[in-house]
């Protein structure tokens, strides 16, 4: 890694570990997510994917190791400051503000662009035309253009999922963490999500995708890392990973299991 220029990676995990009561949920994990790529993180249940996401978001401190965003150590920054640093996320279990409208969910998550930090009036009473425009755009991106004034809790499941994504985008992140966004989706919805993730990539946002649904992972990612027992067991292009014996073993127990 010495040959690579510092700051090349959007996200770098360095010897990251998290132990819970002696269980090594994440065990010396090192990897780099490059700027602008869609990076998949897969692994069987309990392999440490969710713990990794939570470490990146600052839910709890790491036992050891570091999380760096654009070369800057995030240390013990609390979640709300990690958002300001440029990391936003969606939740495996939908966590919208149900009593707020769709529009308000996006407004409240919105992070001001440099030079856009309006003062008291905008912060309290309204938003500038530019911000309203940006929110409208995000609504269109998520296919929620007609639902701006509906309460989030009244949306259908699929719409709530899309609003989760839109809310994360509204924060104008550099890195977006998608925590099992396809859970509970049908084939058509997965295809739809795939297009939206590619659109995110197209707008220059780096995506870290944690997912069980292989169809999605193989369809959108540039590189995939496979975790098992908190350790990295494989890393490569989706096509390589699909054929990797160690990965099959991790999922199926042994190479013979597949034949059986």
């Amino acid at each position, binding site marked *: 890694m010495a040959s690579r220029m510092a700051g090349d990676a959007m996200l770098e995990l360095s010897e990251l570990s998290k132990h819970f009561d002696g269980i090594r949920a994440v065990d010396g994990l090192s990897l780099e997510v490059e700027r602008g790529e869609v990076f998949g993180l897969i692994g069987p249940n309990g392999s440490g994917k969710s713990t990794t996401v939570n470490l990146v978001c600052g839910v709890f401190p790491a036992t050891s190791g570091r999380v760096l965003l654009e070369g800057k150590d995030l240390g013990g920054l609390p979640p709300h400051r990690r958002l300001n640093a440029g990391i936003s996320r969606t939740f495996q279990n939908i966590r919208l*503000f149900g009593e707020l409208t769709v529009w308000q969910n996006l407004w*409240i998550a919105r992070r001001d662009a440099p030079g856009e930090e309006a003062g008291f009036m905008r912060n309290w009473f309204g938003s500038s035309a530019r911000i309203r425009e940006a929110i409208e755009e995000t609504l269109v991106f998520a296919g929620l253009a007609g639902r701006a004034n509906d309460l989030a809790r009244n949306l259908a499941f699929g719409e709530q999922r899309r609003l989760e994504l839109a809310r994360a985008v509204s924060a104008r992140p550099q890195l977006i963490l998608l925590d099992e966004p396809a859970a509970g989706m049908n084939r058509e919805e997965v295809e739809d999500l795939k297009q939206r993730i590619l659109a995110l990539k197209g707008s220059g946002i780096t995506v870290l995708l944690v997912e069980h649904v292989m169809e999605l992972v193989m369809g959108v990612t540039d590189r995939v890392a496979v975790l098992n027992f908190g350790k990295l067991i494989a890393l490569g292009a989706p096509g390589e990973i699909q054929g990797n014996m160690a990965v099959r073993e991790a999922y199926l127990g042994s190479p013979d299991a597949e034949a059986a």
Partner: protein
Amino acid sequence: MVDFIQTTIDGLSIGSAYSLIALGFTLVFGVMRRINLSYGPSIMLGAFAGTWIFVTLDAQPWLVAAVTVAGTVAVGVYVERVCFWAIRRDAAIASMVSSFVIWMQLEEVATILLPGRTYPFPELFRTGGVEIGPYFFRMEYVTTLTVAILVLVMLRLLLFKTRFGLALRAVSENPAAAAYMGIRPGRVIFRAFVLASLIGGIAGYLLLAADQQVTPYFGLWATFKGLIAMMLGGMGSIPGAVVGGLILGVIESQTQWYLGNAYKDLSSYLVLFMVLVLRPGGLLGQGIAEREAQAFRRI
């Protein structure tokens, strides 16, 4: 019938002030799931600051009102720093206990400031009233009801239209998700305290101006009325606080009229007891089971 309606009108007027105090409790409970027992005593000390400039400097009523509200906010901020912010990582019960301790401290401060126990409190407008048909509207009650409605309308706008209000409601609904969306929980909680103190100071002034006097026991009284009204309506529910306060006011004035002063508090406890047995979450609060189920669905 005329008596009944007249008593209901009086009850609604007092009740609107109870609603404001209940709102203060419910706003703070909403954002932190913690109860501030010092809320009533903070209002009391603010009112003592107001009456202090009245008795020592013979200040104008409007200035007394301003000092009462400003004093309540100052004490509210102090309580937030000591009982909530400083021990925010500890158990919720720690905040409740320390807010009880600070309550005692605030009463001491009040008696040091003005050792005479009972002090006059000036009303904003001359006493008197308006007669409409067989009904008589006491001037203090008209003022109370008008101001309370005004505060409610402004609060509604604040909570539903401003970014701060939305952040406050987001933290009430899901503090963890709010933090991931860049909302600083500590800042929202602090502002919720300032807002609650502002409302409490206004309610305190209205109630005391109607009574024309203030004692250190007003703190205890305000905490009781506010907590009962909040629990009647449902803890953490904003419409619940309004409804709970109005119901409490009407129950009190009806019992006072038909059964006598001695039964006033007894009847409100009885109604609270029945409501909590029949609807443990309060009249407009979500039932606890329902809230759990909803949380589970989101997971």
